[in-house]
């Protein structure tokens, strides 16, 4: 038998202190989450609404359909950065888990291309598709759910070297982490959470009249907040399932074992309560603020779970630093410039919209 730790590859050295990568990872992952929720959750909402009759329901789907293609583009783009930083800090874990499920993992690319093209068809041919549009939306949604499931598999498997010896039974990349009790609750919590956040986005679109179709902005707000509230409530339950499915020592981090962890959970629950209350009252902007804070808490909790799982094997401070700070400075300059450029281009785009109207 090989002791679990013996399988963990030796990590490479990093060019700057690990804290930089950690902050960048958490920050960019949050950005990814914000857009990914819109992509996945919005797709689910659009699908559900496509199945319901009624003009406004259809128009809500249509409104979303306009936004779906570039949402996918940005969601994928926003995923690049955290994936980059996770490979810097935890590459030795994620490469190993990826290879164990390689066949599944690689299939994501094809599925993503198909889901993306399907979303374009949904967007560009919304009206002419007629009843078929539910199938098209459904196709994209199913593929995105499939991709999400594989992500949940990889993200959990990378934290559990004790499961990696499955490689010796089959090195063909067919492994899935279904034996992990946290897999399903984690997956569902993320998916339903996406629906909640997407609902909030729809409400925001209505609130700021950022509409392209003839949908009634009030419908957007009403339906959006309803999706938000219901999905958030279900998420709470799923969250508890997730928490209880965690290994005892990690679960206890949030329930007294660590001040940081306990504070996060308490704060999270409080914010959830606030968000539900505000959401129920259709206070779009206040709910959004509470939800953003909640998302930050959840990203930090997720990170604490990761740290907890890996504690017996690794901590980021172990990484050897061979300092070279000029590339970091270069990146930060480019990042700042890039954000400014994006801001400027969006400004031009919004101005042009106003002109047309």
């Amino acid at each position, binding site marked *: 038998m090989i002791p679990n730790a013996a399988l963990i590859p030796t990590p490479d050295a990093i060019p700057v202190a690990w804290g930089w990568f950690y902050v960048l990872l958490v920050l960019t992952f949050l950005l990814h989450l914000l857009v990914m929720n819109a992509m996945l959750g919005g797709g689910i909402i659009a699908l559900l609404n496509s199945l319901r009759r009624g003009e406004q329901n259809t128009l809500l789907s249509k409104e979303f359909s306009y936004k779906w293609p570039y949402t996918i583009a*940005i969601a994928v783009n926003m995923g690049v950065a955290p994936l980059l930083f996770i490979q810097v800090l935890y*590459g030795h874990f994620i490469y190993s888990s990826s290879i164990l499920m390689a066949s599944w993992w690689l299939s994501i690319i094809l599925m993503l291309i198909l889901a993306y093209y399907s979303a374009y068809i949904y967007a560009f041919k919304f009206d002419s598709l007629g009843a078929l549009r539910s199938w098209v939306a459904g196709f994209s949604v199913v593929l995105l759910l499939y991709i999400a499931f594989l992500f949940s598999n990889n993200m959990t498997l990378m934290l559990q070297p004790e499961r990696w010896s499955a490689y010796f039974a089959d090195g063909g990349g067919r492994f899935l982490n279904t034996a992990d009790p946290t897999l399903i609750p984690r997956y569902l919590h993320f998916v339903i959470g996406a629906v909640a956040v997407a609902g909030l986005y729809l409400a925001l679109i209505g609130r700021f009249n950022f509409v392209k179709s003839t949908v009634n902005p009030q419908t957007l707000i009403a339906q959006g907040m309803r999706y938000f509230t219901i999905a958030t409530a279900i998420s709470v339950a799923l969250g508890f399932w997730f928490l209880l499915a965690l290994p005892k020592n990690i679960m206890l981090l949030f329930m007294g074992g660590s001040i940081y962890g306990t504070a996060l959970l308490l704060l999270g629950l409080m914010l959830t309560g606030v968000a539900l209350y505000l959401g129920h009252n259709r206070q779009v902007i206040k709910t959004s603020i509470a939800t953003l804070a909640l998302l930050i808490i959840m990203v930090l909790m997720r990170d604490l779970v990761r740290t907890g799982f890996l504690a017996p094997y690794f901590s980021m401070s172990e990484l050897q630093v061979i300092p070279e700070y000029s590339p970091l400075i*270069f990146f930060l300059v480019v990042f700042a410039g890039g954000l400014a450029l994006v801001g400027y281009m969006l400004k031009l785009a919004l101005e042009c919209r106003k002109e047309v109207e």
Partner: protein
Amino acid sequence: MNYPVWDLTTFGGGFFIALIAVVHVLVAHFAVGGGLFLVTLEQKAYRDEDPALLEYVKKHSKFFLLLTMVFGGMTGVGIWWTIALLNPAATSSLIHIFVFGWAAEWVFFLTEIVALFIYYYTFGRMERKKHLLIGWLYFFSAWMSLFLINGIIDFMLSPGAWLENREFWSGFFNPTFWPALTFRTGLSLVLCGVFGFVTAAFVKEQQLRTRLMRICAKWVAIPFVLMLLGGWWYIVALPGSVSHLIFEHSPEMTTYLRTLAWATPVFFAISMFMALRLPNRLQKVLCFGVVGIALIYFGAFEFVREGGRRPYIIYEYMYSNQVFVEDVPGIQQAGFLPTAKWTLHREITAENMDAVGKDLFKFQCSACHSRGGPLNDIQPLVKKYSNIFGMDAKLNGLGKLNTYMPPFMGTRAERWALARYIVKEFNHSSAETGNLAVEDQDLALEIPPFAKDTDEYVLLAWSTLGMKGISDSSERWMMLPPGTSIYAQLIKRGDSPQIVTRAVELRYEMDAEFRTPQEKVAFWEHAEQLFGTQLEPGVGLAGMGLSGTMRLDAEHNAFVAAKVPVVPYPAGGGFNPYPLLTITAFDKESGAELARTRVVAPATTEMGCKTCHGGDWGVADVAGFTLATGEDILAAHDKNSATKLLEQARGGHPILCQSCHADPALGAAGKEGILNFSASIHGWHANFLTERNGAEACAACHGIRADGPTQCFRSHHAQFMDCSNCHGTMEDHALTLLLHEQQQGNQRAAVLLQHLRSRKVKEVAQIEPRAPWSQQPDCLTCHTDFGVGMSVDAFNQWTKNEEELYRNRHDQMGAVMCAACHSSQHAVYPATFNRLGAQRDSIQPLQYQGNNRPIGNDCTVCHTVQPEFEAHHPNSLRI
């Protein structure tokens, strides 16, 4: 092995990266150039107030959006996915070195996406100048993303100063960075013309369509120059070893280079063709053809770039199979498996050998070699290895001379396990050598009579070589033709015995079943092509046949039957490397018979080439060549030395190796700059047979294996010595020849030398160079003053020239030749280990003195009066 390896079989060897990367780059480079295309065309449409053109630009930008954002973007992510799955170690290295370069590239991806979406969605709604600005910002972002990824890709091929200083900027701005950027920028611009053809072809209005085709053709033509210049610059900037591999060394690269050679002009021509007024239906089909050619062109380029990097994934830093270059010495010492994480086997046992071999193949080979798949399929490459020894030898030499391969990494036991796995798994064989163990025989032997009291003459005969090798593959090539030379000396017995050379005629005759060798070998059918001389069947290269009259060699005081073309295939079938020859001496005048004796005329075709070159023994399962083996040797030579020998041989012109490789044995002068034959063949093969003990390496090729049919080392020396005692191990042997060639100024020797280490002496510098054939071990090295041998190490002391060779020397009186009394080298008396009978090599000692000792035991064989002083040589009266 730090990481697990995805067990791919058919789709191994890098298939997924090749597929995803090639389709990605085609679209991605279009995504860069297309930005400029859109913006300049839009500008033109505004300037010319051309709404139809503007409409085309809008349509093209939709096509552009759908193609580059989805397929282009997602396959880019796909590359990243794939490299982490196929080569996590290299991916990790690159990510940790270039994280901020990649992070910066990500920023430009973001601005690219935002710009393109805005560009498309506000087309016609945004103020013109601002819209154009968005377009320019898109192009700038796209080109910057190319700029950034280019640094990382080129780093893999030419890390430059980074290997020393480990600095990000040295690694990024590496030796091929700017040339490659120029090339790729040119190509990006060319590709917008290519994809422009596609959208233009579907424009309905004919005049606009024609205009657009012309515009796109210009977009191909003009940047084509930049692309070619960049390409040329790229070639010039390549590190020397990369350039050498691509253009001279790697046979596989030739295919891709040839593809580039035709695809480039075709690409250009067909693009220009599109500018002509063609029927729309043809345009709609041809435009995809252009994309297809572009894909082939680009694919060939990327295959050359990736292939030129072999055997590394990151040049001189990490091998393609994820092993760090600096870790290799440690692995060679400690073994591969003990240093790998993702294996269950830390040591090799009888039970786990299969699994060990499988693991080693997976970890070391599968990164580049698929199994039955389209990329570098291992199966045809190892097909000829039907035994483990041959495959193991191949692994032994891996990467030394074929520098596109990495070395085998691991212990000898691991190497054997891998060889065993390959031979078993792919060729379904468990044979270790594929050689049968041959039983000893005791063939009937006629000892001619000798009447000690009355006979007046003693006739001694011997072959000049202990064993004459024959390469029995003359349909395709020849290196050693039949031609066993027999010497004889006729001695008149007496008080003072005399060597008789006048007034006598010595006739020789091979035993009956060996008199028609032309029926057994094809040599005479090809002799003229090989040697340029017409040879009658059964006649050798000195004009002498299987029977006849011996010629006088006055210089040596002896008679010779020169180059008798005896072949070890008796008429009745089978294999006999020790056929017998009868020599009878006659008085010329009276015709009376003066003496008669018999001697072995050795010849063997037991050359072990088939062990590594495939095929099987051609005759009796123990010797000879099959066509398969013969052809593979030429194929290997063609592959390794860029020749066309196989084609030539198949075309009816078999090759004489010595037509290029000088060889004193055949009196061949060879060609300038090419190593002599012995230096070449030993120098090359020594790389594949290192660290062998005793005669193991020698027996792989020469007919000396103990359980083989020839076993030519059959004197008493064989009891306590093997080839390496006098000739050195394989490495030493090759070094003596290569160093001599190097001394003569031949540059090629250095290539074969570089991986050879001396074994019998401490350093290569201590090896004494020698010319082949004329400089050989000297018996007197051990037999100082002709005494009993005081050592068993005769390596590194050579005869000065041919005259000093044992086979050419005489006793102190210059009368009797050494071999007359002592017999041929490798079979000196007593020689009782002949596989066809213990007495077969001792006919004359048995005939004249009733024992198997050197002639002169006792002296009265020739001396009627017992001599009292040692005239022949010191110590000759010892016994």
